[in-house]
């Protein structure tokens, strides 16, 4: 009998774990000027704004750091640490006038030296590589007086200003990766690995102060528990729920709709033998139907894309590339047969398990590839492993992920695919592409630049560099206690604009 009762206890425990997930977390916080924001991943890579690579890290650090200019929600670059700036006639000299009285979070005043230090740090991190690729174009950074910084470029670059969003950090801080000090509306307090990141309003902020006193970014590594966490009150806001999750939440939550500004694709490792054949890559493109994927993942919301560019960048986006491949299973099978795989082949899709959208997409892709005889095995891995195995070590066959733009330029999206770019995690190598990109870099005329960028996009599409899917819709679930969420054309979460709703 004893054995049986222990069995029953086990069963009860099992059902309780399910039931109790919803009750975990700190309910009924009295100090309601604290907002808890769920994030899918921990800030594993670095708290150093210049060294962070993951979009998920940068979206959090946006609240702590600022550059000379700062993007706003409609895509303008507004003066931030610089109060004004001017560009010389030849477009090679940028003069920034610094705002007076800007303070760092440690209380010290920001000086022109800190700006010079930050920019030079990004030009060369000590090992000869530039942390911001565009800064290799900088000839010199000079400080003629205490409130002026002059940046001299080697070549004219019409997109240069967009890169001035790079965070300015104090020259005196030797350990920015553990003690982040910036000038943003929120001050970093603490971080518990795999648990949370805590921030507090910075009361000496130069601009309009944030309204909510405390922000806790809580890591929710298991995507299946998002609705539980929201409904149970453990988090007040989650910036990326799926439409099915949104439907689950009910009327305690506002669902804000925007786009994620990501290029979601099945990224192929070009070092994998089978993907070296363009016909195989094209066959995969012909096998899928982005509309069907959107139907499943987000009830048909989302925008189809055909290359590494999303529609928010209107100037560069080419809608016609969506039709380079329309689902055509016969054609896909023919291409596979031509490439020497008449019976298909099998490969692995590695997906970070904390992103429900990508996990769902991978499952639909696997089902679609089945129709042309290609077997895709899905391997779910944790975000840290994704970052180290896939992104850094490039030890994978394919992955579903969304790639963001770090600044408001086409370059931010397209430079990645040049042969020797450090962010080229798909190891794409194409001489034509490199040439087109170089032309775009050298072009001084705006329309000429756009023309070359579009050429780059077209090459990526025709060469089927990756299996492009969509720019995901962003559904932000916000507890009705809070309001004021704003979407940005870059991948950030701006908490400073949010406020508490009076009841």
């Amino acid at each position, binding site marked *: *009998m004893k*054995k*049986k009762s222990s*069995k029953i206890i*086990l*069963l009860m425990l*099992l*059902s309780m774990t*399910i039931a109790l*997930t*919803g009750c975990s977390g700190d309910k009924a916080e009295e100090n309601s000027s604290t907002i808890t924001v769920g994030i899918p991943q921990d800030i594993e890579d670095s708290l150093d704004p210049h060294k962070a690579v993951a979009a998920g890290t940068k979206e959090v650090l946006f609240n702590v750091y600022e550059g000379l200019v700062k993007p706003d929600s409609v895509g303008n670059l507004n003066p931030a640490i610089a109060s004004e700036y001017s560009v010389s006639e030849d477009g090679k000299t940028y003069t920034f006038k610094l705002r007076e009285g800007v303070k760092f979070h440690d209380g010290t005043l920001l000086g022109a030296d800190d700006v010079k230090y930050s920019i030079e740090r990004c030009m060369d991190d000590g090992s000869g590589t530039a942390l911001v690729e565009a800064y290799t174009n900088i000839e010199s950074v000079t400080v003629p007086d205490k409130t002026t910084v002059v940046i001299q470029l080697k070549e004219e670059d019409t997109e240069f200003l967009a890169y001035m969003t790079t965070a300015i950090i104090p020259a005196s801080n030797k350990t920015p990766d553990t003690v982040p000090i910036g000038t943003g509306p929120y001050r970093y307090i603490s971080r518990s690995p795999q648990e949370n990141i805590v921030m507090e309003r910075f009361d000496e902020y130069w601009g309009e102060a944030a309204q909510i006193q405390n922000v806790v970014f809580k890591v929710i590594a*298991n*995507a*299946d*528990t*998002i*609705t*539980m966490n929201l*409904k149970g009150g453990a988090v007040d806001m989650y910036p990326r729920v799926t439409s*099915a*999750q949104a*439907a*689950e939440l*009910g009327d305690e939550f506002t669902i804000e709709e925007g786009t994620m500004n990501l290029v979601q694709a099945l990224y192929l490792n070009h070092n994998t033998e089978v993907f070296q054949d363009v016909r195989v890559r094209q066959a995969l493109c012909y096998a899928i139907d982005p509309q*069907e994927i959107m*139907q*499943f993942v987000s009830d048909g919301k989302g925008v189809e894309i055909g290359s590494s560019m999303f529609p928010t960048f209107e100037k560069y986006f080419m809608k016609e590339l969506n039709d380079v491949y329309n689902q055509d299973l016969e054609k896909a099978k023919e291409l596979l047969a031509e490439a020497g795989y008449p019976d298909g082949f099998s490969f692995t899709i590695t997906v970070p*398990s904390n992103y*429900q959208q990508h*996990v*769902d997409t*991978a*499952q*639909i892709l*696997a*089902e679609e590839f*089945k129709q042309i005889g290609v077997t895709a*095995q*899905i*391997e*779910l891995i944790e975000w840290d492993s994704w970052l180290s195995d896939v992104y850094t070590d490039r030890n994978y066959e394919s992955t579903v992920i969304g790639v963001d733009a770090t600044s408001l330029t086409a370059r931010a999206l397209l430079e990645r695919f040049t042969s020797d770019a450090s962010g080229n995690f798909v190891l794409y190598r194409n001489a034509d592409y490199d040439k087109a990109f170089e032309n775009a870099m050298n072009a001084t005329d705006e329309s000429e630049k756009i023309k070359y960028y579009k050429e780059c996009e077209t090459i990526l599409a025709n060469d089927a560099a990756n299996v492009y899917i969509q720019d995901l819709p962003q559904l932000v679930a916000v507890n009705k206690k809070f309001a004021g969420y704003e979407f940005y054309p870059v991948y950030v979460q701006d908490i400073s604009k949010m406020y508490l709703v009076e009841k």
Partner: protein
Amino acid sequence: MKQFFKQNHKTDNSIRQMLRKRKSPMLITGIVMTSIVLLFVLIGLIVTPYDSEAMDATSKLAGVSWKHLMGCDNFGRDILSRVMKGSATTLFIAMGTVLIGIAFGIVIGAIAGYFGGLADEVLMRMNDAALAFPSILLALVLISLFGTGRYNIILALGIAFVPSFARIVRSEFIKQREMDYIRQAELIGVHPFRIMFVHMLPNSARVLVSSLLIGFNNAVLAEAGLSFLGIGVQPPDASLGRMLSEAQAYLFSRPGYALCVGGTLIFIVLGFSFLGEGISEDAKG
């Protein structure tokens, strides 16, 4: 049929005696429930109402209907078909786990119990060390070494299950070691391994069968637990734990999803529990 019974009467072993006795209601319930489960899984291996991986946008999260007896999941996949396939996966993993566990457990337990002395000390202290870890935790460590996937889980859980079986076999062997028939066999000069596996093992069958069933239940729950945590069976493959994890997100709008899967899991575990309990109760008297 008649002949079959006749033959059965001639043989004389404990299992037949057990069967002839009046069976406890617990045993009968266990047999019925387990048969239903096995039938359900066997049918699932041959045919399911729908392809368990076929997606259908029109029946996304569809409710219970005659077309879909358990409804559909968020990809429009038929839950009943997936439960059938998932139960098969779960049972397959549990069976593999128990086989590995019992095979190594018997060898280790037999050597330790029969020879005693130094062999016993060394093997059992190692066994105690392994038992000191909760088996799920041990399996987690092993999975991080081997990687995920259904065969790796079998291996990881199998290894984690060895110590408990080894302990049971050892105690049974120590008990029998002192019995006259073993003493006599030794005097005649029967090889120790023959004594262990031909003489002693069949006589331990009764204890082993019920511990096997309990172990099987633990393995079912362990697989479900691991897959629930996302480190077991990988999508799009179905397993009961994996499906519970997926159902979690729809607990409020579609509680039926989680209930169907959880209910199946409970039914399986309960069935085998009754069976094991019934067998050991009947054996006692």
